[in-house]
């Protein structure tokens, strides 16, 4: 079995699977059960000045029969007293010395406030900090959370404060509610951050109850925008992680977060540059037990690919991400349909007809009508391949001979 252990900015972890700072890490007994289940690390539910939560506070986006494609929440940071949390953190770390225990922090924008809480936490024996600059609702209205993360100067400043106060590794958790992720990330680096984690939740209104016309989640007839997470946000998180992984000004480890539910999701984050991954929604949906297949699946994958350690795949796909202008305009694929596998749903036809380039027609094969691609017209967009429900039926076939390459940059003489 491949070695899954990682060293994340000096924090040792038996595997790259951490619980994100959220309800699953609310208290000691929960984190301990998670470690027993196999989680390598946990980021404690954000500590700060105790708050009061609303009820209700979650709402979900279903897709077809799949529940919770996306989850939306208006929960704030921990609602438990600081001293209780500190006591449990101390006990937990003592009981699980080999696991990674990171403590998430969020306090008002004052040097003393950040430094005081950082010192108190350091005293528990925890392994590091995560600065929550990402919570997009509630806390941001009080000048915290995303209100910090959205202003690179603040991000830098608060990171510096905490670094001044502690020797422990400091992870800065970024908000995706910005126009370009690189700026707050570079600011964190400038402030001395040892690592980055992303993404926190995305601003969202999940929907409206059509009977009452009250948006979700309903708090006595009113709703507020909340933070969006779960499987639906994975592509957004993957993009932001890969953006930072290939940014030469961001040379610190990344903990990938957002929509991770299976070992495949996790492997994708690792390939695009994350050293650890954090999970929230999938655990809220199915429980800590999902870590079993995260570990099992990832180690089987590594074994099958012939890697001895998970570290061998971290960042392997980063160099495969580039700017559009560098893509090869001469590379050409077309769709090809295997009629022996076709079930005649005709979805490829209508998708190409109304959503692409009108190049899937019908042909008679032994008295039956089958779709066929006009390869001269096919632009190789993939759409039919994506909609086809029959496994292996439509394949995208390369038709250029590979002898020539030409990017838009080369074609237009733009500097790379």
């Amino acid at each position: 079995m491949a070695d899954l252990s990682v060293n994340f900015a000096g924090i040792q972890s038996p595997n790259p699977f951490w619980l994100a700072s959220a309800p699953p890490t609310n208290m000691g007994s929960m984190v301990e059960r998670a470690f027993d289940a196999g989680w390598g690390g946990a980021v404690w539910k954000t500590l700060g000045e105790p708050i009061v939560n609303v009820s209700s506070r979650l709402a979900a986006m279903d897709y077809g029969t799949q529940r919770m494609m996306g989850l939306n929440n208006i929960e704030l940071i921990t609602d438990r007293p600081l001293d209780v949390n500190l006591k449990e953190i101390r006990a937990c770390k003592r009981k699980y010395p080999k696991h990674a225990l990171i403590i998430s922090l969020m306090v008002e924008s004052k040097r003393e406030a950040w430094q005081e809480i950082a010192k108190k936490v350091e005293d528990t024996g925890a392994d590091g900090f995560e600065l929550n600059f990402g919570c997009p609702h509630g806390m941001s209205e009080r000048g915290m959370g995303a209100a910090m993360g959205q202003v690179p100067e603040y991000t830098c400043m608060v990171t510096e404060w905490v670094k001044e106060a502690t020797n422990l590794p400091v992870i800065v958790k970024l908000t995706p509610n910005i126009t370009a992720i690189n700026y707050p990330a570079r600011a964190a680096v400038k402030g001395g951050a040892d690592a980055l984690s992303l993404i926190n939740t995305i601003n969202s209104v999940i929907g409206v109850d059509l009977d009452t016309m009250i948006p979700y989640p309903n708090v006595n007839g009113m709703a507020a925008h909340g933070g969006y997470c779960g499987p639906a946000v994975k592509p957004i998180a993957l993009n932001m992680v890969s953006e930072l992984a290939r940014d030469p000004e961001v040379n610190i480890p990344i903990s990938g977060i957002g929509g991770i539910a299976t070992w495949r999701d996790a492997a994708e984050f690792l390939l695009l540059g994350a050293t650890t991954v954090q999970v929230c929604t999938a655990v809220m949906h199915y429980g800590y037990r999902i870590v079993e297949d995260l570990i099992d699946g990832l180690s089987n994958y590594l074994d099958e690919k012939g890697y001895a350690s998970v570290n061998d795949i971290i960042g392997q796909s980063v160099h495969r991400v580039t700017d559009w202008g560098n893509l090869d305009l001469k590379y050409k694929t077309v769709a090809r349909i295997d009629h022996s596998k076709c079930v005649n749903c005709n979805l490829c036809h209508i998708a190409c007809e109304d959503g692409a380039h009108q190049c899937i027609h019908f042909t008679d094969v032994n008295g039956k009508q089958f779709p066929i691609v006009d390869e001269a017209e096919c632009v190789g967009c993939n759409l039919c391949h994506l909609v086809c429900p029959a496994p292996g039926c439509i394949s995208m076939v390369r038709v250029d001979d590979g002898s020539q390459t030409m990017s838009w940059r080369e074609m237009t003489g733009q500097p790379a």
Partner: protein
Amino acid sequence: MPELSNSPLTPEQITANFCEIEPPLPMAEALFEAHRCLYCYDAPCTQACPTHINVPSFIKKIASGNLTGSARVILDANPIGSTCSRVCPVDVLCEGACVEKTLMEQPIQIARLQRYAMDHVISKQIDVFKAGAANGKSVGIIGSGPAGLSCATYLARLGYAVTIYERRAKAGGLGTYGMAEYKMTQQDSADEVAMIERLGVQFRLSCEVGRDVTFADLEAAHDAVFIGVGLGATNKLGIPGEELAGVYDALEFIEHVKTRDWANVPLAKSVAVIGAGNTAIDAVTQAKRLGAEKVMLIYRRTQPEMSAYEYEYELAKQDAVEFHWQTTPLEILANMDGSRVAALRCVQTELQEGKLTNVAGSEFNLPVEMVIKATGQQKQRGFLATIPGLRLDQSGRAVVNPATMQTDTPKYFAGGDCVNGGAEAVDAAQHGKHAAMGIHQFLTGETITLAGA
């Protein structure tokens, strides 16, 4: 007859035996199933449905929570969508063609979803169609079976004044009197008829054309006439003993069952059903469910040659019916005092040079207390022949132009079992639709295409 009713079962047990074999889908299952549908384009299921209901469209409306819209899509192409959702042989129709059957060996449960949407509008009496603005023209319809109901619905929607003449006391044709009770009850049929009545269609029940009203009356009252008289009584066996007490026609037996008056349904300990079509299966399964101890199906050919659908045969097997293949009844034998049936004298058959032949010396007596004849229905030759100029084919079916369903007597259109010789309710519904188009064209000169034509 009541003296025959010696079921060992209590009425409650019989009622339980006749509960629906395809119960309504619970909401969660309906939504799951609706979401599973791929929303095929030019969908194979739609092609396979004789009324060409836009199946993906009605299923996606269930998924989106638009049940009224879903029912509208169904009823637009099939006015008896409620009946069909319960009785269609879907394995050989829509569900047999579903791509999910190919992909997963598990077709979408189209009929049960169809029923889900239909139950919504029928239980809430939501009328998705209204009668069209009166166009001053009138059409008379003979027979209130699937063909007549379908034709009447479309014509009413187009603004015609429609009157259905029905010789029976209840409307619905075989939908009311013939469908196996575990598939569909008379109440289900009555609810569907009520929906069509609310569209303004007039029903003249217990009114037989040719007896209570004449063709001259019809021609005077209406601009066109649709003939949807179905088929007649069950064919005679043509063997001695057919008139004995204890010998029933399958349709007569099923009609009794459908009254749900269990105490008065004729039944004996041992029952032999002669024939191997779908009606024979309906008879054996219902006899078994009533509590007959021994139920036998007697068929002169082999099992693969039976005309019943595979799943119907399966049903009979599950009900522990005894099958006597390659067996021909020669005579129905009476008991000692000659009062009623006591045995069936049979002979084995075999194929000799492609010809079904009795095996000499293989005669035997099968003791049996009740015999049900399920050897196909007679054509309505006698009735149809009374309409001057109406052409019949050799087997006694009305000959029509398939596009318009018009007979050789221009004012008369026909459809359903009396034209196709006996098929499914859904085929009769499609005939009714084509006839409505034909009648509209005949009376207005305007060519229209109804949904799924």
